[in-house]
């Protein structure tokens, strides 16, 4: 199940583990990504709190945790190749995997159609 936030993160949920990244639209707005600051494994994330920072040449943007959980893996490939975020934002350019907290509420996240409609309004 893949869901989206209004801050342009995507989250793909598979059982109690979820993969998080930024959307194709978001990377387009940022321009060439030059650096991604990822959280340490084991870090507790709270929904809406800072999870990572993505940097282009002239901007730094926070990436927020879409749900509560704990970081179980960070995408080390981004250290050497931050351009992956531009090339494959919703695949190889993922940021982190998190183990979701018990009973997280996904009701205010958007599905793909809703997110696309949301982007149209921007």
């Amino acid at each position, binding site marked *: 199940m893949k869901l989206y936030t209004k801050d342009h993160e995507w989250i793909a949920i598979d059982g109690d583990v979820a993969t998080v990244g930024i959307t194709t639209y978001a990377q387009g707005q940022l321009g*060439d990504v*030059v*650096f991604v600051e990822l959280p340490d494994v084991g870090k507790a994330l709270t929904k809406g709190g800072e999870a990572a920072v993505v940097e282009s*040449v002239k901007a730094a943007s926070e990436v927020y945790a879409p749900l509560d959980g704990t970081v179980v893996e960070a995408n080390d490939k981004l250290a050497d190749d931050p351009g992956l975020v531009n090339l494959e934002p919703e695949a190889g350019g993922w940021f982190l995997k998190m183990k979701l907290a018990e009973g997280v509420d996904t009701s205010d996240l958007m599905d793909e159609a809703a997110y696309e409609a949301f982007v149209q309004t921007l």
Partner: protein
Amino acid sequence: MLNDKGRSTRSETTDEADMTASTFTGAKALDVEEALIFEIGRAEVTGVDLPAPKGAKSRLGAHARKAPLDLPGLAEPEAVRHYVRLSRKNYSIDAGLYPLGSCTMKHNPRLNEKMARLPGFSDVHPLQPVGTVEGALDVVAEVGRWLVELTGMAAVAMSPKAGAHGELAGMMAIKAALQARGLDKPVVLVPESAHGTNPASAALIGFEVRPIPARADGTVRVEDVRAAIDDRVGALMLTNPNTCGIFEPEVAEIAAAIHEAGGYFYADGANFNAIVGKVRPGDFGVDAMHINLHKTFSTPHGGGGPGAGPVVLSERLAAFAPLPFVRMEKGRPVLVEDASQTRAGETPYGRLTAFHGQMGMFTRALAYMLSHGSDGLRQASEDAVLSANYVRACLEDLMTLPFPDHPSMHEVLFDDRFLEGTGVTTLDFAKAMIDEGYHPMTMYFPLVVHGAMLIEPTESESKASLDLFVATLRDLTLAAKAGDTDRFTRAPRFAPRRRLDETRAARAPKLKWEKPVAAE
């Protein structure tokens, strides 16, 4: 002139091919390619003749250096040529109009340089006996007196090394004053249009930053400030004239609001050059304000410093001024370097830097102040404001003003609406100015305006210079609107370099020269 064959020296033809022609050396006539010192220098070469050391003695203990340093040397002619060639790849205020808004690229008088190099100023040590440097202390005191008088404040801290350092100094005074009153007010209000240094300086010493929105007319309103104030707010940082080039109409009411709440008003003095001799910040309620001597008082920017950022302080903050400071007693300067030398009512919060501040900038600024006098300083402010408004008047029919309802101060802000649909961005427009022989204006700042272009012509330009500048921008604007996008998107074409790949620089930073690995 004719050559020895009597032929005309005029070229037969010029055509497009000439524009893209390459040369064997890579040079374009006066613009010569220059390698790095690490590529042309050699470890055994030196450009300085020193006597041979005699001694075989050592008191270095076990710490004598064994490894080489990899520092190449150049003989004097090589060094001169290296740096002269490099210098020719730079734009400079001496060579042309430099309309960087918020940066104040005015003429740098050479008298200032001469005065700073008088041995009595340049060749004295900061810790010589005070009796041997009274003339140097006089300079510190005299620059301070001018700053206090021009701003209508009570005191000045001279030691901050640059504008941002001055902000830090001022915010520390505010923090010390709050602490002395036993108040816990950790929040600072900062408008969204502020320089990035403002929130950064406040955050560095533990203040929380709370943004205040800018109104649609580019100003900050007292009602927005009142709405943001609660009992945790200890200070407000406001640039005035603001970063949109507007004098804040409600500044006195804003100052009163923060004072009523028990807080302090920090003013960013980056734009003081618009109002010197016209209005005194002390009269509109400022408690602390740094002054960029390298902006308002013409000390050279030097490719990025050194600056100097003295901070003037109100009666409420004067007691907290940092060490060291110069106190005048019976017409003679007294240097106070340590808390043990203070008197009642002097409670410095500490020290910001080694020694006494940017003396070499004080001498330059003093030469500028003495040259202008109070009358010349006022005229300079008026001319800066006049020139900015003239540029505005000559361009406002073609370019777009985000804030047409207020007169500009020393700089005029345009946005990029006039480029809508042309395929030309603010960046492209700026790069095309380079081809026309101009340094671009400040771009994309302030952040509250889309595609901002902030133009500060300063008082140093003649009317003829302004007229040519305006004509150039009009021509560029018309070209953009006429669809000549190549002139913009491919620019600059005639500079020593075309556009540089900043993404590549940031993705895999190469921050120093490394010996190339020898080919197999």
